[in-house]
């Protein structure tokens, strides 16, 4: 989850007419999780579908709404300026076709504000921009940018990239800079998208890096921001979020015109979509409330949306373009709940009264557990993800038909267990200093490719102590089968390599093999370092119980 951090002082300054404690306590009720708080700063986690929460300004905007200090869609002006022009070369259409921009003037940037902007940029890159693959952002010092700009492609170029002191060629940027190595591979062609100003200076090589010459720093007053990308909707949404933030910071905004051939267009920063004719009944039914149209409008305005009555039973709702999380009427339901205040909603219970039961499968498993603990056995629960060493090598088996998972972060957990016995033996090996006898069992799912069903339920049992024999383990199995199921089974000599030769058997029930039983081979005792004789069985519960 992305985080946003800012000084608490910023909150107390803006909400000076409220008790600070009260304001801070409201943060979770707009969907922010407190991650850390000290004397000076506060760090909050926000949901990735709310990029408007990536700065203090966005959070303050929402808080003002919920507290009733400022409601409805935020209003700001954007002046038209025909000089702010980007000429788009058709060659970009195959590589990174979309570019939009905005000019922001007359506000002196402080380091604190830059920190907020940089953090917002980072979060937009990673979230909406999907690690810059869908969209990327450049902030520039407008005073060092000469309009009109040209957005085109080049195969060779050189400029001083951000955080560098000398010119680098394209090749050098791609192979020697951190950003080049990380983001260069997003572009597959031999030519690269470039934004140049009227003097021919490269100001940006999207999505890789900006120019050092247009860096924003403490004291800069005028900004130019550009967003490029391959997904038009995302590119627009990113600039929507930046624009409203720049307006909140206090900049005066100007449009940037995009020209390609004869067609011109301008990014409209004040675009609202309208969801029409949302039934008040629909909202009330979902929430279990009885709010009037006026109440609903009031709640929505507290969430910084606007709404008007449509007819006596429905409303129309306006959503600013930066609110990318709202798809349809059900999202308006949630906004109403938040605007109403979750703390104001009285929990109730549904009127329906139904009768429940546990699954047949778990009914059986519980009975098996009861019988097993009655014989003094202790239940284990092991991970399903295991490894080939424990499962096959130590078991003296050649592993086949097992499932592997891709890219596991742990070498010890990269296959799905094919049986439970290896983990129980491993468990014995970890407990060699504990008191004997050690009698363990486990019930759990196992996985194999050869079967009609990939997943089966299994029961395994081990008994370890000096002098344990086949008879001992058969006695456990026999008692279980008698006591739990009054089931008659047979054991028939088998050649399982994990057991002592001549002391292993298939367990047969109604003529089908449902498991193995035997004295564990000293080879395994050795490889697991158990140092004590072990007898064991494993039973296929899916086959036996037909579940």
């Amino acid at each position, binding site marked *: 989850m992305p985080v946003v951090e800012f000084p608490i002082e910023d909150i107390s300054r803006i909400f000076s007419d409220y008790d600070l404690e009260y304001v801070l306590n409201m943060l979770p009720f707009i969907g922010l999780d407190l991650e850390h708080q000290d004397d000076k700063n506060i760090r909050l986690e926000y949901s990735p579908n709310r990029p408007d929460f990536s700065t203090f300004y966005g959070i303050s905007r929402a808080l003002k709404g919920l507290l009733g200090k400022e409601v409805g869609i935020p209003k700001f002006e954007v002046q038209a300026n025909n000089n702010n022009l980007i000429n788009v070369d058709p060659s970009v259409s195959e590589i990174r076709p979309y570019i939009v921009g905005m000019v922001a003037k007359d506000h002196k940037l402080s380091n604190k504000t830059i920190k907020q902007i940089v953090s917002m940029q980072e979060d937009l890159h990673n979230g909406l921009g*999907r690690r810059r693959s869908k969209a990327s952002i450049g902030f520039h010092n407008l005073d060092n940018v000469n309009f009109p700009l040209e957005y085109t492609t080049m195969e060779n170029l050189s400029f001083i990239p951000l955080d560098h002191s000398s010119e680098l060629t394209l090749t050098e940027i791609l192979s020697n800079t951190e950003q080049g190595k990380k983001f260069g591979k997003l572009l597959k062609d031999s030519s690269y998208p470039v934004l140049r100003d009227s003097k021919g200076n490269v100001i940006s090589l999207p999505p890789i890096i900006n120019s050092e010459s247009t860096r924003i720093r403490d004291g800069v007053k005028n900004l130019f921001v550009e967003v490029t990308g391959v997904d038009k909707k*995302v590119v627009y949404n990113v600039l929507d979020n930046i624009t409203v933030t720049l307006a909140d910071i206090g900049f005066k905004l100007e449009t940037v015109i995009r020209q390609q051939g004869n067609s011109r267009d301008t990014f409209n920063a004040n675009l609202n979509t309208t969801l029409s004719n949302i039934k008040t009944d629909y909202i009330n039914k979902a929430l279990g409330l009885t709010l009037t149209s006026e109440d609903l409008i009031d709640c929505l305005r507290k969430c910084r949306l606007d709404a008007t009555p449509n007819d006596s039973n429905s409303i129309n709702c306006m959503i600013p373009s930066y609110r990318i999380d709202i798809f349809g009427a059900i999202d308006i339901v949630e906004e109403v709940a938040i605007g109403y205040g*979750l703390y104001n909603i009285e929990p109730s219970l*549904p009127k329906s009264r139904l009768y429940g039961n546990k699954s047949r499968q778990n009914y059986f498993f519980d009975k098996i557990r009861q019988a097993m603990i009655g014989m003094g056995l202790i239940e284990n*629960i092991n991970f399903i993800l295991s490894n080939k060493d424990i499962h096959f090598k130590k078991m003296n088996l050649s592993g086949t038909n097992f*499932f592997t998972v891709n890219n596991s972060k742990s070498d010890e957990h990269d296959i799905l267990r094919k049986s439970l016995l290896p983990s129980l033996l491993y468990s014995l090996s970890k*407990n060699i200093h504990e008191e004997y006898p050690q009698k363990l069992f486990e019930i759990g799912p196992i996985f194999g490719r050869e079967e009609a069903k990939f997943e089966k339920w299994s029961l395994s049992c081990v008994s370890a102590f000096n002098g344990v024999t086949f008879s001992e383990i058969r006695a456990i199995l026999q008692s279980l089968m008698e006591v739990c199921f009054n089931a008659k089974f047979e054991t028939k000599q088998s050649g399982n390599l994990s057991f002592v030769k001549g002391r292993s058997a298939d367990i047969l029930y109604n003529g089908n093999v449902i498991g193995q039983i035997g004295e564990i081979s000293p080879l395994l005792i050795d490889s697991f370092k158990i140092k004590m004789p072990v007898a064991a069985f494993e039973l296929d519960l899916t086959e036996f119980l037909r579940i």
Partner: protein
Amino acid sequence: MTELNLHKIEKKILLSLVNHDKIDVDTLASNTDLSMDNVRRGIEWLKYKGLVSVSINKDSIVQFASEKSNDDSSSNKTKNSNSITLPERRIVDSIRSKGQKTIAIGDLAKISGLSNIEFGVGMQNALRNGWLTKAGDNLNLTQNSEKPSDEEALLEKILKQKKMKLSELNDQELHGFTLLKKRPGYIRETIEKFFKISLSSEGKKVVPTIKKDEQEGIGTITAEILSSGKWKNEKFTEIDVSSPVRSYGIGRTHPLTDIINEIREIFVSMGFSEIEGSIIQSCFWNFDVLFTPQDHPARDMQDTFYISNLTDENIDPIISKKVSNFHSKEWNYDWDIEKSMQTVLRTHTTPVTIKYLSESKLSEGRIFSIGRVFRNEKMSYKHLMEFHQIEGVVIGETVNLRDLMGLQKQFYSKLGLNKVKFWPTYFPYTEPSLQSMVFIDKLGKWIELFGMGMFRPEVTQSVGITNNVLAWGGGLERIAMIRYGLDDVRELYDNKLSWLRKQPICPL
């Protein structure tokens, strides 16, 4: 001081300790005429009362090389359950058995019946012991040969006592030990721990108060005592009823199973029925039906376990058409059915829920599931790569967000958690979405427990549901950690017997 209520066994032990310091358990047993079990039990009790102190000594122990090989007839070392005959003894015995005192070396090798190696060793030792003297090619038997050698003296002693402490050997035996240790296959030396029992200072004060005239009477009640009617005429001796004894090693279910069962019962008591489903799921059910876009970060291999070489091509065409439409329209990309055929270890139990709702066409009801879910995470004290998730689901025409909150409060209260609050949050497949915060008295703080919400229309409409669906769920291990006071979640899957044997089945 006041007289303690001491058991007969305890009194015997205490009295026998008066004249001995640091006595071992075997000796104590023979001095008191008690069984080893009774002595051990008595010492346990007395130790608990602080009347005796137990110190641990280590000692070297000498015994036969292999206890079990005594009856191994294939051994040519002529061992049997009664004795070990050294080759030098067999040499002199064989001379004696011929009734001679002098014999030629060549003949002796034949009549001894020993292998070349054994004969060589035997001769060397017989000469060193002075049992034989050499005269040219002949050997003379001496008087000395009738006395046991130092080695034989040691073997004789071990034969009687089975095990001997090195520190208790006399000089002759010690010499025999030094010699025999160099000869493989006869004896071995091991280190063993010994418990030495002494009176504690408290114990010394108690001893004078013990009444020596121990009352006579019936100790352990046996079947014979009952059938003979002996008990009618005799008193029963008093026993110490205040002493703790050794606990039984009882069988038990895993603590996680206990919590799962408790939660299962809570669900059932609230009218929920349990459903089951696969752990391996297609991306279609795990993500796509649940309105999670195909480029969502949660679907990265970094976060989700994909199964190698396994696809599920059985994608319902009607559902997939609706899913494709919703994704393309609202998330603005081309939905790819190939990606939805990939298989994963389910990242949550919700695919089981939605599949069930889709297949059963349930329109009113309450269901729940409890099962293993997976995240490709590095394991740490607070993260596991697989854990248990619980999920409760209510479907109905009139169910609503307030009901969801109410059910949740009821659920928590049945777990003994009564302070609950709700905050908004985000899940791709629910709207509105809430998270619940619960106050844990034991920790003195609020913690985040289950997430919940109403299934989005994109989800319900894809599978043909028209009623509202409420769902809540979350990990179980967190509750287990609080209940069992764990700081490291991995301990739940360690299966340490010391831990499993100790956890209360029913923590108060």
